[in-house]
């Protein structure tokens, strides 16, 4: 049984002032971790080799997955926030694993050769104006970009969804965090046209947010 757990990584190397620079793990993070833990058998049976987390923040999710899958996979992460990249690397190190972090917009600098087996994204999903997506703000902070999602909270997510079929392998899994306002039904429809079957595998209502995790798969 012990083997099937997705242990929550130790984050004691990060302090209060670090969370002024990167997104502190919250309900959405924990819902994603719970969903991945429940789905660990599905993930293991895919035998993913190349995994990618987009927008890794503190690195808690990529580190948990990297630890669970061990030397059978290579975990990469991206974030546009330079502190997130640094902390992701440190979180992995503090937990005796490795996450290879590259600072970039989404997956824009990854070769689009259907090579990623497992993709994770807890995006900025909050409904805001499009202007709030301008990066970074006057005092140089990236923190608002951790949650500001533009119209319907979909502007950032949609830029990834558009070409995810070219990024992901013929047999692959993709876990995405959404809220009700993002119109999950529309996202499911959208991705089915790229050959992905989607299913909501976890939901939680936290204060006024209806959070869900959708699992997309193809070739399985």
């Amino acid at each position: 049984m012990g083997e099937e757990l997705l242990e929550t990584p130790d984050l004691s190397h990060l302090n209060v002032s670090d969370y002024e620079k990167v997104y502190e793990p919250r309900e959405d993070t924990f819902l994603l971790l719970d969903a991945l833990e429940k789905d660990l058998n599905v993930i293991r049976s895919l035998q993913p080799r190349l995994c990618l987390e987009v927008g890794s923040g503190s690195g808690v999710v990529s580190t948990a997955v990297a630890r669970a899958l061990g030397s059978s996979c290579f975990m990469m992460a991206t974030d546009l926030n330079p502190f997130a990249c640094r902390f992701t690397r440190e979180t992995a190190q503090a937990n005796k694993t490795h996450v290879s972090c590259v600072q970039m917009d989404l997956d824009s600098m990854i070769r689009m050769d259907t090579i990623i087996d497992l993709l994770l994204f807890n995006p900025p999903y909050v409904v805001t104006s499009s202007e709030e997506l301008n990066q970074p703000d006057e005092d140089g902070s990236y923190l608002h970009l951790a949650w500001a999602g533009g119209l319907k909270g979909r502007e950032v997510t949609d830029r990834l969804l558009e070409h995810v079929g070219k990024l992901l392998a013929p047999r692959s899994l993709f876990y995405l965090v959404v809220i009700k306002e993002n119109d999950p039904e529309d996202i499911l429809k959208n991705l089915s046209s790229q050959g992905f079957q989607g299913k909501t595998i976890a939901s939680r209502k936290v204060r006024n947010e209806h959070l869900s995790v959708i699992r997309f798969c193809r070739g399985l």
Partner: protein
Amino acid sequence: MKLLTHNVLSSKCLKGVSVGYPLRLNATDIKVVDVDYNSEFVQRMIPKINYSALYDAAQSIGHHNGLPDTVAEDYEHNEEFLKAVHHVLLEVDIVSGDLECPESGRKFPITRGIPNMLVNENEVNEINDSNGY
């Protein structure tokens, strides 16, 4: 940055760039680290990597020792080959230096092991910009 990471990076999204691969690698600080060898992982990774890009990158920084310039034919059973690939993919760590787009010459600095490939909106192709900027 591991050479496996280098192998999957491309600057194709830059305006006016048609292939953007492989990125040129300049390393000013390289660390060699120990990583657990998993023969099956390396075997299963071979079809995903661009082998000549890997070989060229390793050679350009002088870490191609023992690596043949093409994939060994019987690679699944060739432990010596798989170990050499393991070493180059995972144990050679670029701490600082830069990556360079082979077409535009745009440089991306690597600091503390992390490449910075964040570019301005006006540097990328429209297709990456569906949000109306």
